[in-house]
């Protein structure tokens, strides 16, 4: 072994001293021959004879040198280097070809790498610096009668943690926000309410100070401490090294800064970068609806678990379900019908992983298509060049290169192209890392944080894609060399426009594939576009124009409930007296905004829910004039008035679906509904509207007066024809007249709000649209290339046809029909595949059938127009063939 290693070192070293060693060898052999000649002459031979004899007994000098060289260096490396040098020379010699090929591959591989990096950075390893993310699972609740996942309650989680043997830790992390003044402007800042084990459990260690200590998540408002992010520390606190122990007011409560998180740690929420963390004991300060740590019925927590090593999700789920069953039996009041579900990180339901998952899944398929189309284009280019290089190949074969050697050369050239393409592709991916965010609007002034992640896995996958591309690229000319025959190479060949030889067949096959793939993408883009239009045209059930939405955050400014009520009343009076205002109202939650409505179990006189099921209904707390301002019609009864305050009888307004579900054919007005142990009288029935998503089906919902369920964090709605900007200025003046320290959130129209809620759809359409367009362009180039090559190769045939009396229009038709035939074949193949494939878009489609004829029809139209454009130039050239010259040449 030792000797083999030594000899390898020798051989490697020899690669770098080739010229010297070559001189050495020449000299050594020369000296050998001279000695041999000398000896022979001494034996009495003539000079000429002596030389002949010496050469004879030596054997071939060149063979010896070749053998010697093989022994000296590493032939594999040497021939590879040779191939590389030769390949690069070939690429330099035809820069147009090389640039086009590399550009195609850059786009193809770049699209792949970009999507890989998004999938990695958003779905699989979304939390930089968090250790062993593969052991993390997301936790949600389930509720019978509820289709989607629910959240979980603090007492339930504590019990789960105590009883579980397979789970290492439960990590609570609930997104929240506050307003921090930075200089003289207020900035909305996102943060997390976390369990005390948070930093230890995710393996992130603060660079200054500490994380939270055990017990800091216990007790009502008992531990006002916070860990701040690196950006916040650098930005707001100018990187103050003495920051630990200083205080910061968060939502009106002074918090002790105990730690600074490391750079590059953004928390554990896909979509936003967290700026601060507070322990769960401070929950009441940040959550608008009270103290919930001892309320088993309050389900508000987003959390993860870290599995013990070697435990699978199925095992953990089994154990957790068992514990949840026990909790159901122990606490039937709050837990009847409730379970717990574990999700892999990439399916996390409570952050943007869920919204982006279907889009990213679709993109993975789309980029494979784009790669194939790009490879087909480059393959076609290589094929054309391999005809041009037929002569060179034949010569190489003739002077003794084996077919294997020839193949290696061709694959090396493919590898150079795809490696350059991959390098460019990774650059593209790097530029695109933060591109997803650009497609999403900032909400509440906070830009989203959806970075791609280019780690070794992404690099490895991209390298894999590059290798596949190489194989695909190498295959085309390789298939070509297989039927190179030495004798035939001298014969001239001309392909026919109509029949076409074997090579034309390969080229046409590639084009058919390109066309069918592009067609599929076009159909997909069409379907998504239609869905988006359907979604945008769906009425949310409230007016979207001429209603503005904003908020004044009173919590950070330290307002208590009574001050907040007084402020809201006064601001409402001032706003209503402004010119151009039709009406205005407060409400706790904006429909179709990011947050979710509170839900509560309800009971209704005379309504018997199905066994084992607890009806849970979401609700909103709204002020007087809410329905008039929002434009939600009341079917019967009245809307809340100022008289419905804390001293008055409790009242509620239900929507039509709730009325139908709980009161069947009775009129609910005047009936009672029990919410959290309090009976309320129904005073009105409102028309259904959309609450959390435009795409949701009608669902039960009810409203209670804001005054009877007060929340300091209410939003303000204003019905006015004024523009948001005009309104913002006037509004800010009124707010500052009341309290100059208050900050106003952005003022947007409800239409903007609705548009933001559909942005994942817009992202899907944009991405598929852009890549579909790219694919179409590449295919058009491919079709154009094939047709113009066919025309240039068959000048003779065209000339002959002309000479025999074919008119220019005949030739035009001939070429066009051949191009369109290729397209038709591609489209029919593509349509067949698309019929099966578009079903996979499933969740992204809204009220559009995956076989929607309009989408297929418009894709066909676009494809036909593109094909016509791509074939016209070659056909026009065919028309202008000069028969005399064509026949003479």
């Amino acid at each position: 072994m030792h000797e083999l290693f030594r000899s390898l070192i020798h051989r490697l070293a020899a690669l770098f001293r080739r010229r010297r060693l070559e001189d050495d060898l020449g000299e050594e052999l020369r000296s050998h021959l001279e000695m041999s000649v000398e000896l022979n002459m001494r034996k009495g031979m003539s000079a000429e004879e002596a030389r002949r004899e010496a050469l004879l007994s030596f054997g071939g000098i060149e063979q010896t040198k070749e053998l010697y060289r093989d022994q000296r260096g590493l032939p594999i490396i040497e021939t590879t280097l040779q191939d590389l040098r030769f390949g690069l020379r070939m690429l330099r010699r035809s820069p147009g070809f090389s640039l086009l090929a590399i550009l195609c591959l850059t786009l193809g591989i770049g699209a792949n790498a970009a999507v890989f990096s998004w999938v990695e950075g958003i779905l699989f390893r979304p939390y930089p610096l968090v250790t062993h993310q593969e052991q993390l699972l997301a936790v949600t609740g389930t509720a019978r009668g509820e289709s989607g996942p629910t959240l979980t309650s603090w007492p339930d989680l504590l019990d789960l943690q105590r009883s579980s043997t397979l789970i290492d830790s439960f990590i609570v992390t609930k997104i929240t926000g506050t307003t921090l003044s930075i200089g003289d402007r207020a900035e909305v800042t996102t943060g997390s309410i976390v369990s005390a084990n948070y930093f230890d459990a995710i393996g992130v260690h603060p660079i200054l100070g500490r994380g939270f200590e055990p017990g800091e998540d216990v007790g009502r408002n008992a531990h006002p401490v916070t860990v701040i992010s690196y950006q916040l520390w650098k930005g707001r606190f100018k990187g103050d090294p003495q920051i630990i122990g200083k205080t910061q007011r968060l939502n009106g409560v002074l918090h002790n800064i105990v730690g600074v998180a490391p750079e590059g740690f953004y928390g554990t929420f896909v979509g936003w970068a967290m700026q601060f963390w507070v322990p769960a004991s401070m929950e009441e300060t940040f959550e608008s609806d009270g103290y919930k740590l001892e309320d088993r019925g309050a389900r508000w927590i987003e959390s993860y678990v870290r599995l013990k090593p070697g435990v699978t999700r199925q095992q953990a789920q089994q154990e957790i379900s068992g514990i949840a069953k026990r909790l159901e039996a122990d606490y039937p009041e709050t837990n009847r019908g409730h379970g717990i579900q574990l999700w892999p990180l990439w399916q996390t339901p409570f952050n943007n992983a869920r919204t982006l998952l279907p889009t990213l899944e679709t993109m993975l398929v789309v980029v494979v298509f784009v790669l194939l189309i790009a490879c087909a284009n480059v393959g076609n280019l290589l094929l054309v060049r391999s005809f041009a290089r037929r002569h060179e190949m034949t010569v190489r074969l003739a002077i003794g290169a084996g077919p294997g050697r020839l193949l290696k050369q061709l694959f090396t050239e493919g590898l150079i192209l795809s490696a350059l393409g991959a390098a460019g592709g990774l650059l593209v991916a790097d530029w695109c890392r933060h591109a997803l965010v650009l497609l999403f609007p900032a909400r509440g002034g906070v830009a989203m944080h959806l970075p791609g992640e280019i780690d070794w896995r992404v690099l490895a996958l991209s390298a894999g894609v590059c290798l596949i591309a190489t194989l695909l690229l190498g295959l085309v000319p390789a298939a070509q060399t297989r039927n190179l025959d030495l004798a035939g190479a001298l014969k001239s060949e001309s392909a026919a426009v109509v029949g076409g030889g074997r090579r034309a067949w390969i080229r046409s096959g590639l084009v058919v594939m390109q066309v069918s793939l592009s067609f599929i993408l076009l159909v997909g883009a069409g379907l998504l576009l239609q869905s988006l239009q359907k979604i945008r045209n769906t009425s949310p059930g409230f007016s979207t124009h001429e209603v503005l939405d904003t908020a004044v955050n009173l919590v950070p400014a330290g307002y208590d409930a009574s001050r907040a009520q007084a402020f809201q009343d006064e601001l409402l009076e001032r706003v209503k007296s402004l010119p151009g205002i039709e009406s205005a109202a407060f409400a706790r939650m904006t429909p179709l905004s990011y947050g979710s409505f509170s839900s509560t179990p309800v009971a209704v006189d005379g309504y018997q829910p199905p066994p084992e099921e607890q009806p849970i209904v979401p609700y909103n707390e709204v002020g007087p004039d809410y329905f008039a301002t929002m434009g939600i019609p009341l079917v019967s009864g009245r809307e809340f008035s100022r008289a419905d305050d804390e001293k008055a009888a409790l009242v509620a307004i239900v929507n039509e679906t709730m009325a139908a579900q709980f009161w069947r054919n009775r009129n609910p007005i005047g009936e009672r509904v029990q919410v959290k142990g309090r009976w309320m009288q129904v005073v009105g029935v409102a028309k259904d509207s959309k609450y959390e998503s435009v795409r949701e089906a009608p669902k039960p919902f009810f409203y209670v007066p804001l005054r009877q369920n007060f929340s300091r964090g209410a939003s303000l709605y204003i019905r006015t024809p004024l523009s948001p900007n005009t309104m913002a200025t006037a509004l800010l003046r009124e707010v500052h007249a009341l309290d100059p320290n208050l900050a106003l959130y952005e003022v947007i129209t409800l239409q903007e709000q609705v548009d933001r809620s559909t942005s994942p759809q817009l992202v899907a359409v944009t991405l598929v649209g852009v890549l579909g367009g790219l694919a179409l362009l590449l295919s058009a180039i491919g079709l154009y290339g094939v047709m113009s090559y066919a025309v240039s190769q068959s000048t003779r045939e065209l000339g002959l046809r002309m000479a025999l009396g074919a008119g220019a229009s005949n030739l035009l038709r001939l070429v066009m029909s051949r191009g369109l035939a290729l397209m038709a074949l591609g489209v029919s193949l593509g349509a067949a595949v698309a019929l099966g494939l578009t079903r996979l878009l499933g969740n992204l489609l809204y009220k559009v059938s995956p076989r929607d004829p309009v989408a297929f029809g418009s894709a066909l139209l676009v494809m036909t127009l593109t094909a016509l454009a791509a074939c016209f130039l070659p056909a026009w050239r065919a028309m202008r063939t000069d028969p005399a010259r064509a026949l003479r040449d």
Partner: protein
Amino acid sequence: MPPPKSEVLQGTLDLLVLKTLDSMGPLHGFGISMRIQQLSQDLLHLNQGTLYPALLRLEQRGWIVSKWGVSGNNRKAKFYSLTRSGRKQLEEEAENWSRMSAMINRMLRTT
């Protein structure tokens, strides 16, 4: 009629070269080939050219070293000499060879 020359057995060339350098001391390629042919009393047909890749192989394994020098009749030539590990290798190979040939002889005699 001279007896037919036999080709050098695959793998034995290394042994012959090592043995030659062992008994003769430093020698150039031509010298080695002359010596081998001489010792084999011209029964061995050695393509002199095949010697050089073999020399390189032995050198790469560290059994011999080479140095440019001047031959007896004032000609520049590359001289090869045995190293210590080369001598050890020679002993091993020689022993292997005698064992092998003894065995083959025994087999040929018994049948």
